[in-house]
C-alpha cells in the first residue's frame, strides 16, 4: 500500500500507509493527523484540508479541477502553485512516497 508523508507547519513529519483509493485527506483524518480538518468529509465543500504538495510530485498529482480551484481561492492560507485540497487526491501505487505540507491555517 502506498505511503504518504505529512509535514506539519513546524516541520514535524509523519508517514502513513494509505489504503489504495483513499484520499490523502481521509488517510490523515482517520489516523488523527493534526491540521487537516476536512469539515465536509471530502465533498470538496469546505477548503479545510488544504495542503502544499512537494514540487517533485506535482506532475503525478496533477492540477486541481475547476471547483477545487475556486475553493482554493477561498482557502484560509494563501494558495501557491502546489496547493491542493487533500480530499481530491486519491492515493495509488503511483503516488507511493508522496509528501505534502499542511497549510498553516485551515479556517
Amino acid at each position, binding site marked *: 500500500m502506498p505511503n504518504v508523508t505529512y509535514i506539519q507547519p513546524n516541520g514535524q513529519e509523519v508517514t502513513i500507509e494509505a489504503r489504495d483509493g483513499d484520499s490523502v485527506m481521509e488517510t490523515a*483524518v482517520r489516523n488523527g493527523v493534526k491540521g487537516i480538518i476536512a*469539515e465536509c*468529509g471530502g*465533498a*470538496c465543500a469546505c477548503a479545510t484540508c488544504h495542503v502544499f504538495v512537494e514540487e517533485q510530485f506535482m506532475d503525478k498529482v496533477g492540477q486541481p479541477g475547476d471547483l477545487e480551484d*475556486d475553493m482554493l*481561492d477561498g482557502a484560509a492560507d494563501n494558495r501557491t502553485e502546489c496547493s491542493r485540497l487533500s480530499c481530491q487526491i486519491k492515493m495509488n501505487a503511483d503516488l507511493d512516497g508522496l509528501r505534502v505540507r499542511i497549510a498553516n491555517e485551515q479556517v
Partner: protein
Amino acid sequence: MSERILIIGAGQAGMQIAVSLRDAEFDGSITMIGEEPHGPYQRPPLSKAYLAGESDEESLELRSPAFYVENNIVVITGERVVDVRWDAAHGTAVTDTGREVPFDKLALTTGADVRRLGVEGEDLDGVLYLRGMADAQGLKQRWDAAKNVVVIGGGFIGLEVAAVARKNGKTTTVVHRNTRLLSRVVAPETSEFFKQAHERRGTTILLNTNFARFVGENGKVTGVELEGGEVIPADLVMVGVGVIPRSDLAEKLGLELANGSIVVDAQARTSDPRVLAAGDAVTMPHPLTQEGQIVLESVQNAVDQAKVVAKTIMGEETAYTAVPWFWSDQDTMKLQMAGLNIGYDQTVVRGNPDEEKFSVLYYKNGRVIAIDSVNEVLDYMAVRKALGAGQNMPADKVADTSVKLKELVED
C-alpha cells in the same frame, strides 16, 4: 482522581467532543457509547458517494479504530444506554446489556431519528428510510435491481437520492406535499431552480401531492398510491420526510426540552449543569444573533457545537458563534449554503440559474444574513467569511457578476 466524561451517542458530535478534549490535553477518562455496531462514521455520503458506489464502509469511518486506542478514548458500540442514575458525587449509566459506566460529566449527542409516516404498506420490502449505515446498506442492496424509484419528500436527502437514481438511469419520481421543494429551508427562487434542474435530468417532480399508501404484492412494494387514486409504479421507495430529535434519555434525566429538542445555552449546557449536549438533538440560541432558539441538523453544527462542549468541560470561556454552513450534492449541482435565512425580507439572485451557476443572497434590514450558491464556490466563501466577520455587502450591488463579492464587503 481525574474527571470521567461519558458521551452518549457515537456520531459526528460525540467523536468531535472526544477528539477536542484530547486536543486540549484533557487527562481524564473518556467513554463514548453508541447503539450502532460501528464506531463514528460520516453520514452525509450515505445518500451521495456511498449510494453511487464511490466510497465504502471503511472510508466512511471518521477515525480509525487504532486512533481511539492511541488517544485513550473508549468506544462502546452496539449498546444502548437505558438509564442514568445520579448519586451525590457522580452518575452511572446503564446499558441494555447491563453494563454500568460511572462518570462525573455527561455529554448527550444522541442525534435524531427519521420521522416515520405510519401509513399503510410502510412495512413492505422496498420501502426504505435513510439515516444510518444499515439503512444505506439496505438501499444499496436493492439499488441495482430497481427500475422505478419513488422518493417521498422533496428535501435534501430526497433530492440527493433522486439525483443518484436518475443518473443511474432509473425512472425517478419525487412526491412532495408542499407547493415547492426544500420549502422549509430555501427561498422560492432556489426551490424553483431545483425543480427545473431535476426535471431537466428527467426526474418527475410532483408538488402539492399527498399520497395515500404504499401498494405491493407478495410483501414487496409495487407502487405508491396518491390521494386521488393514481398509482405510481415503484420497486424502490425512499422516504425522507424529516427527523425527530432523540431526547428520550434527556427527558428521563428531567432536562428542559422544546418541541422534543434538548435546550442548551451558548455554552452547550443543558438545564442540568452536569449535562452538556450537542448536535441534531439540541436547540440552541441563534449562533449569530442570539435571538431565539434554533435547531441545526448539519455536520457543521455537530462539529462546532461539540468543540464548545469540550471547551466548557475544560472550563474555558466560550460561546457558540460559528457561522452555519451546509452543502448538498445533487448530480453536477453543488449547493452550498452559509448563514441562516430566518426572517429574511429581501433576496437577490446573482448569476444565471438556467446555467446552473448562481447564488441567492438573503437580506434582513439591508444586511446580508445568508446565501445559497449552486456551483458558485467563490460567492459562498465570500459570504461565509463576511458573516463570520460581521460584515455586509450592499444588496443593490451584488447582482453584478462582473464584480467579485469579496470586493463588495463593507462593515
